[in-house]
């Protein structure tokens, strides 16, 4: 499976949010989108799944399920957690599992993977921001989708939770999935490509192995 895009443009609110963006990420690989605030990282991710209209450029997915659009094979972890405060953690998760038509309803397993198993019955309103974020991440575990788009996944997570997230991401990559994450710092994954958005025409930096801070 290979998700590639060339010469993507996004024009919104009278200005170019980003222009001339090209990238390609295969299964087992992770692409990190870096840039200052407002560089259009979120818009790029949302553009890939059609939540933001791209004014120009082509997105192709080789190897995915032909009948489904890219969005229907993608998990999107946005800034908001998509949780209903009056529903319990288990109810929220089983709703999303049911809505995304997950074959196996392993709610408890997914909650356990993010360390929230004991809080299954609690209304989401009682959870802390970090716990709500982890509950949102549990959605990615409960429903198997090959592509993960993560928008600042580690925000509001403490060190332990970030470690757990890195483990989950590595497992996803190992199982042949691919990840595209908009983030400020490194997210602890070994093999990553970097896509820097703040230059005029964003270049695709290929750095296998170690992370170096770009000048």
């Amino acid at each position, binding site marked *: 499976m290979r998700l590639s895009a060339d010469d993507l443009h996004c024009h919104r609110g009278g200005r170019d949010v980003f222009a001339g963006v090209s990238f390609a990420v295969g299964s087992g690989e992770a692409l990190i989108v870096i840039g200052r605030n407002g560089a259009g990282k979120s818009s790029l991710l*949302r553009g890939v*799944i*059609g*939540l*933001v*209209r791209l004014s120009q450029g082509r997105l192709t997915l080789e190897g995915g399920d032909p009948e*489904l659009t890219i*969005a*229907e094979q*993608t998990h*999107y972890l*946005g*800034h*908001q*957690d*998509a*949780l*209903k*405060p*009056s*529903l319990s953690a288990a*109810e929220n998760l*089983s*709703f*999303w599992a*049911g*809505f*995304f*038509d997950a074959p196996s*309803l392993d709610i408890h397993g997914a909650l356990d993977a993010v360390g929230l198993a004991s809080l299954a019955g609690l209304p989401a309103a009682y959870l802390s921001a970090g716990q709500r974020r982890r509950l949102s991440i549990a959605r990615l575990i409960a429903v198997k989708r090959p592509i993960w788009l993560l928008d600042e996944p580690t925000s509001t997570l403490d060190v332990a939770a970030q470690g757990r997230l890195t483990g989950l991401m590595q497992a996803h990559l190992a199982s042949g999935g691919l990840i595209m994450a908009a983030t400020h710092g490194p997210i602890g994954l070994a093999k990553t490509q970097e896509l820097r958005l703040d230059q005029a025409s964003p270049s695709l930096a290929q750095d296998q192995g170690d992370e170096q801070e770009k000048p």
Partner: protein
Amino acid sequence: MNPLAAILVRDMRIAVRVGGGALMGVLFFLVVVTLTPFAIGPDLALLKRIGPAILWLAALLASLLALDRMFAADHDDGSLDLILMGRAPLELVVAVKGIAHWLTTGLPLVLAAPLIGLFLNLDAPAEAALVLTLLVGTPALTFIGLIGAAIAVTLRRGGLLLAVIVLPLTVPVLIFGVAAANAAVIGPVPFGTPFTILCALTLASLVVGPFAAAAALRQEME
């Protein structure tokens, strides 16, 4: 559990929990109907004549005003993004949300109408006609209201704007609803004709509503 059932169960659960708006429509309906005699006067004969009209207007306002948070709530907490990424067609998802809203707001109105009709001195045939017309009419009100709720999804003060957008669209339903309800009491026209037109209007809105609302949501999202 397939996607549409998941949406229905979720929306019903939220509506009945603390903070949900399940019976708010019925309370509004009761308050509006109780207030009218204070304006018009306690003359039972007059109330009996305009009873169906008051009840229909109150039902119309009650079902519309509860609609503004339908999509806005999902938009604000990020659920709408994910719903758009689901494999279930958006039109059906919107229709199911409409059904969930009708079950928690519209249906209680229909069940409460006969009791509240007593305050306006309606007799048995008038009550029966009222319940029948409301039973058929309220789904149309909800599904037309869906369009307004979808258009007002990103707006902060969606509530009143929703009513202003949608009320003109519901005029046919109101006309034939009240005509059918009155036909059983005083109306020159037999009950059948306005009632069948009301049924036609409802069926049309069951189709037009979701499609228009889904289109509005897609436009709204970019």
